[in-house]
């Protein structure tokens, strides 16, 4: 059984690091893993997407419309943008974070109201994460992505892998403690 996971966010939010930790864990667990990311110009605040597919044998890294088992959105507008990729009865994990794109900042477009409400009305399996609030309470705003990692590990039901070890391998020592807390908090939601 192959699982398809789509991560979406905004350049600079740390989605790539989460995908890296996630795929390392899946390989350690013995899965065949394909991960594909689109960045490039995204360092300048554009949309970033990472596709991860894992199972006994995986060929293609690509996920089409209605094909993602889990959609993880690090920002809510991006959840709305990519919602069509989520398959019926799939799980949506969304960070209740609002980041204005340039057309909104410059007054050419409006950031839509009620995104979370619309998503709730439409999607049955939805988990809303207050990652910013949690990270702020832990005193490290940049740990938002690791909160999301915890939540999506739970959504995928792969808690048995040693994620703490992988977080330690991928992050500098001085931020281990706060990120482990962030992960555990995400896992508990």
């Amino acid at each position, binding site marked *: 059984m192959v699982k398809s996971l789509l991560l979406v966010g905004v350049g600079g939010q740390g989605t790539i690091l989460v995908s890296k930790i996630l795929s390392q864990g899946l390989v350690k667990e013995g899965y065949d893993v394909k991960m594909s990311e689109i960045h490039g110009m995204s360092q300048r605040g554009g949309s970033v997407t990472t596709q991860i597919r894992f199972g006994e044998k995986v060929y293609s890294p690509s996920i089409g419309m209605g094909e993602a088992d889990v959609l993880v959105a690090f920002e809510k507008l991006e959840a709305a943008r990519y919602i069509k990729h*989520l398959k019926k009865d799939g799980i949506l994990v969304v960070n209740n974070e609002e980041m204005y794109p340039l057309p909104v900042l410059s007054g050419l477009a409006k950031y839509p109201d009620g995104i979370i409400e619309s998503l709730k009305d*439409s999607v049955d399996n939805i988990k809303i994460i207050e990652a910013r609030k949690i990270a702020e309470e832990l005193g490290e705003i940049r740990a938002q992505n690791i909160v999301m990692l915890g939540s999506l590990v739970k959504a995928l039901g792969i808690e048995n892998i040693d994620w703490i070890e992988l977080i330690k391998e991928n992050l500098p020592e001085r931020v281990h403690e706060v990120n482990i807390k962030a992960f555990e908090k995400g896992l508990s939601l």
Partner: protein
Amino acid sequence: MKKLLTGNEAIARGAYEAGCLIACAYPGTPSTEILENVSQYEEIRSEWSTNEKVALEVASGASIAGARSLVAMKHVGLNVAADPMFTMAYEGVNGGMVIITADEPGTHSSQNEQDNRLYAPHAKLALVEPSNSQECKDFVKYAFEISETYDTPVLIRVTTRVCHSKSIVELGKREEIGIKEYTKDIRKYIMVPANSKVKHVEIENERLPRLKEYSNTTPLNRIEWGDKKIGIITSGISYLHAKEVFGDKASYLKIGFSYPLPDRLIKEFAHEVETLYVIEENDPYIENFVKAMGIDCIGKELIPMCGELSPQIIRQAILKEEEKESYEVDINVPARPPALCAGCPHRGIFYAVSKYKDKIISTSDIGCYTLGMSAPLGVGDISICMGAGITAGIGFDRVNQMADRNKKVFGFIGDSTFFHSGITGLIDAVYNGTNMVIVILDNRITAMTGHQENPGTGKNIMGQETPMVDIESIVKAVGVKEENIRVIDPYKLDETNKAVKEAYDSEGLFVIITKQPCALIKDVQRKRKELYCEVNQEKCRKCKTCLKIGCPAISFKDNVVSIDKAQCNGCTVCLQVCPFESIEFNGESR
């Protein structure tokens, strides 16, 4: 040992294991990480070249001198490097030579979608196409062997999804090949007409027939028999998509060595299957060959020519699969295009020029600063390729003069792009007498591709110190009049506005050099960590002038203008444009 690697990491590993000694590249998505990873192996001398042509020439010289050499670039980079590549196909190699072209179906961060497989028959070079990371590593090793056995540079074509996808790779050991003897041989290495005529005949009559034989027998091309009702000829990432869709319900001719194509293998395969499909991204490269052999197949009638393929696209095209059920929300989702970062040094100059935007034509170039075209700054009329920010401006200026348009041309080019192919344009502008303004945006790094060193940064890819090439000295040396040169700090708007006005009012060629390092350089981030601007809400009259600089840190929400402290680096451009002095600077110094 097994490791999860991207295609680019695996290519680097392949070069290492193959005993490669020299590797050169110019950064460009999706190829950049190839050389970045090669440079981690100290056995290989790695160099960021000033452009792709230089890179390919350095690799050529290294190969002729006897070392295995590798050169990597994005698809459009190969256009720049095409000149030496075509002649190296005639000269052949001494040490093996591998050229990597990283193509971009889907143009995620490129100016076009060209299919560089077509270069192989054009230049008469062997062509190899890996599908996943394991093949990326293995095929680089094969390519070096092919190169030396058949006396030809080998082109390896990868695409974004191969370069930036991770899959599991079995690592091997490095084989030390050493340096071959160099023997002077002017009939092989000097392509004057007398020699090239002979070489061309040799290629057609000897090398290509031998390579064709290889193509029919190499393990890089293989048949995987499954159900014979459907037969699929495919290569690269398309092979993986096809496998995903059809599994063992089809048979496959998987092409890994794609020039020359394996004629006998194709005939044998086509003969055995009921319906033959060719599944490939972008151009009908394999399909045209199959059809020219008089073999019926289905290809671009069903498979899209433009953009990337995916299993879903293939299912919909061939199996007529209906759209999958999903979710929808009734929300108008605004686009999220890339934008100049908060604190980007390009903002000040673009803001200053934006006040003239109805009176000028602006010719832009390839880099972060192409984004100056976005609203609200809106500076940029055309952008073509590396270097054209200057040269297309020259041509535009000629016609503006003829048509009495009274519109000054402002050409924009970054530091790395200036070294890449701006200098020749600058000299042309001086030589042919041009009444334009050239703005060289020196942010001390190759920024767009993720911060690579360049001749202006004072460091090479190995981290060693190098002389810093001084742009101002070059501008003076080629003959731009001193009174027509301004070197400014684009964080200082007074200075910037003054230079732009003088440039607009000037006669003859005028050059503005903006000097301020990219806000994302680690040292810059460290230095400016505590600096930020803040809106004094009591003084703010919500005139929204600050929003006109297009800074992603400034927002207007619930009738309040605010600055995101986390993004802001205290560049103070917003503070300088505020007419009511309601933005305040925080930090020790500016």
